[in-house]
């Protein structure tokens, strides 16, 4: 057994992050790890990588029990971790990025630049990739940087490599390439722990998939027998969601008309229209340009050419401020970093977009209106919270997402763009968000609904635009459309 973790418990003060978890890795496997944020999977990985120490429990590496160890010792045991941000040095050469950590660990004082060249070139060659070792790392695309991180782990003689959300910044073809490399390394006896919230990817590449929930290991699935995504979802969320088909509330008036919108390296010739009260889905692989399109409509990364009409008037979305003035709002996929001010209170987060409307004539904040607004929003969206002055970080993911939604609903936008609004939240919060969306659509608000979850798109949307390679490839009506047909269209679209 390459690695065996026995009854691992980790407490932070009174909070139990991991509760008696058993986990193991064999040589030459890819082991997927899933669970919503805060389920304990990251904590376990940090313990295995030596970045954190368990409160109780034992870890065996190659059947030898190891006392809690440091990251440097983990490296000696052959364990490497590649964090989501890759932890590389953009100002150093690729070559130096690969060998520096090993040299530091070796305790040597000086560097002879040619020393590692042959060894590294051999690894690069064995992976069958092109890589300029003299290039400055910061100038490489993210996919290449990730390969550098993998090569660094291999150069450090890692036999177990932990990958934390390795595909978030990659396009479809880059992901395929990464999987090819992981599989060839697996054949050479390297093992991977693959953390991701994208179930289709895990099902595609993993030998086993382990599900975490609330600090417990729920189940480890063997992916050699055909495994259904719904089985894993059920384990992750506690129960399976039943999707109901919402009836269309689309009116006649066009509220958003986009014509030939283009932005270099992002998307090209995007044209579509959105009606009042309509929920329009956007599907497509990562790197298809769907998030980039949303960012352009919201003015965060404005388009270079093309036109945007809101309610019949041509508008400019050259900044977020202008987009919001035109009634366009955006709920981002990355809730923690982009959606919330995580260290501030629930009330402050909920009222963040409304501050200008809460001014008294003297230009001061009308505190009564401010508190009332926040309280009303909490009721309207059925947010479950302790005190409204508590930090937003004290809420569950689902309730946090409701607050993000509330923040924008408070200013009554004409068009609300939702980017993967239900990623990593529990079933109850999911359906509450769907209900809110349709209640608002009933009142005439129009939605662009971007999602990876096909059943969600099918149940919520009237039409779905399928994007690929920065373009709209197809437009599908959801009436009579099956999940399989939609999946096929997305694959056809490519990325």
């Amino acid at each position: 057994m390459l690695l065996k973790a026995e009854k691992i418990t980790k407490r932070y003060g009174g909070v139990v992050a991991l509760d008696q978890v058993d986990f193991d890795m064999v040589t030459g496997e890819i082991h997927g790890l899933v669970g919503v944020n805060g389920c304990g999977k990251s904590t376990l990985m940090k313990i295995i990588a030596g970045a954190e120490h368990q409160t109780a429990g034992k870890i065996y590496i190659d059947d030898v029990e190891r006392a809690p160890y440091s990251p440097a010792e983990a490296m000696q045991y052959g364990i490497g971790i590649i964090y989501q941000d890759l932890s590389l040095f953009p100002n150093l050469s690729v070559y130096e990025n690969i060998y520096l950590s090993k040299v530091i660990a070796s305790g040597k004082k000086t560097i002879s630049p040619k020393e590692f060249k042959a060894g590294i070139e051999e690894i690069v060659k064995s992976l069958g990739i092109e890589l300029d070792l003299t290039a400055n790392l910061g100038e490489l695309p993210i996919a290449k940087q990730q390969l550098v991180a993998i090569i660094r782990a291999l150069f450090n003689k890692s036999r177990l490599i932990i990958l934390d959300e390795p595909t978030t910044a990659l396009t479809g073809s880059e992901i395929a390439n990464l999987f090819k490399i992981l599989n060839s390394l697996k054949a050479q006896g390297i093992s991977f722990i693959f953390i991701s919230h994208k179930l289709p990817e895990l099902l595609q590449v993993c030998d086993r998939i382990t599900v975490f929930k609330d600090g417990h290991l729920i189940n480890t699935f063997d992916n050699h027998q055909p495994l259904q995504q719904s089985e894993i979802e059920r384990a992750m969320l506690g129960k399976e969601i039943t999707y109901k088909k919402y009836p269309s509330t689309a009116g006649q008036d066009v509220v958003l008309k986009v014509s030939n919108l283009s932005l270099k390296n992002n998307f090209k010739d995007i044209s579509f229209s959105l009606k009042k009260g309509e929920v329009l889905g956007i599907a497509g692989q990562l790197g298809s340009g769907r998030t980039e399109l949303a960012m352009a409509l919201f003015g965060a990364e404005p388009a270079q050419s093309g036109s945007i009409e809101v309610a019949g008037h041509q508008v400019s979305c050259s900044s977020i401020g202008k987009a919001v003035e035109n009634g366009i709002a955006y709920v981002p996929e990355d809730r923690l970093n982009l959606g919330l001010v995580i260290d501030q209170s629930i009330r402050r987060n909920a009222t963040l977009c409304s501050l200008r409307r809460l001014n008294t004539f003297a230009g001061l904040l009308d505190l009564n209106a401010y508190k009332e607004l926040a309280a009303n929003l909490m009721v309207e969206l059925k947010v479950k919270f302790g005190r409204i002055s508590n930090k937003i970080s004290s809420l569950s993911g689902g309730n946090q997402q409701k607050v993000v939604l509330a923040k924008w609903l408070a200013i009554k936008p004409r068009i609300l763009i939702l980017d993967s609004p239900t990623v990593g939240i529990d079933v109850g919060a999911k359906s509450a968000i769907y209900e809110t969306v349709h209640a608002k659509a009933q009142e005439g608000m129009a939605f662009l609904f971007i999602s990876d979850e096909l059943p969600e798109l099918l149940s919520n949307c009237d039409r779905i635009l399928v994007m690929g390679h920065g373009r709209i490839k197809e437009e599908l009506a959801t009436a009579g459309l099956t999940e399989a047909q939609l999946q096929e269209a997305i694959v056809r679209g490519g990325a």
Partner: protein
Amino acid sequence: MNTKIFKSREFLLFAFIVLFSVLISFVNPKFLSYENFVDLLKSYTILGIFSLGVLLVLLSGGFDLSFTAIAQVVQYAVVYYFIAWAIDNVYVAIVASLLIGAMLGFVNGFIIYYYRITAIIVTIATNSIYIGFLYVVTNGDLLYDIPYSFSVLSDTKLFTVLNENGAEVGVCLATVLWLLMALGLHFFVSRTVLGRSIVALGGNALSAQRVGFNLRFTTLFIYTFVGSMAGFASLIQVSIFQSVVPNSMVGSELEVIAAVVLGGASVTGGRGTVLGTCLGVLLFAVLSNGMTLMKISPFFYEIFTGIVILISVTVNALQDIQRKRSQVRVQVEE
């Protein structure tokens, strides 16, 4: 390979130095003489030594605004006690100034590391404390009667030739020491594990921590180094000017930082070379000398210093934006 050299910051600086030198020599033909050149080097040796310390701290992603204050304190302490105890030995003085400078720098590093406070704030505060302390203790009194041996640093001439008046002209010992130290620092940042670690730290501090750097040792080392460079520079200063004025170097921090930044170092860390820094200092020297020869008010020099810092920072920021923009996020089908 060849085009890479021509595009480098170092080449650009060199070209500017040559260009300005030629321009100035039209106004004053004496400018392009060996004598003027070594004089220029001598008067900019102090700035040059300061800049080595500042380069290292900028490379690491840190900052230091207290080094002139450290220099003032070291200078006063060393000269005062060497006079009082009648020790006339410049070599002992060098060791003493390096040590006292190192101690004062260590205090910066200690506060920055253990209390995780932004370096710029810490060093603004210690700058104020060191200088204030010096004024209180000394009442701002000047010191003369500098120990005789101190002048070895500025009066010893190497690589001498005779000028038209038959006087010996040569590079002073202080300048040679500066250039030797520059060479040493170059070796340190390019070939030693600690040096490369400092550069890497400036590139991404979180990564550095995760890769297993000894952050404590590195931080303490960096600020101690800046302190000792400041101490040494102060000794050169007293050797050249033959007096100790408690506020003579105060306010020149920005000039040093501007020279280092002009030399290609980034104020956000991780970028910069020793050669670039030395050329940055030299360009500053040529410009200020040229301004004097052309009778331009020295106050313009201050404006110039500020502009250099602003432009360098802006250019770096623009480059980052440009890089972000040009990144291919979606392979768009044409």
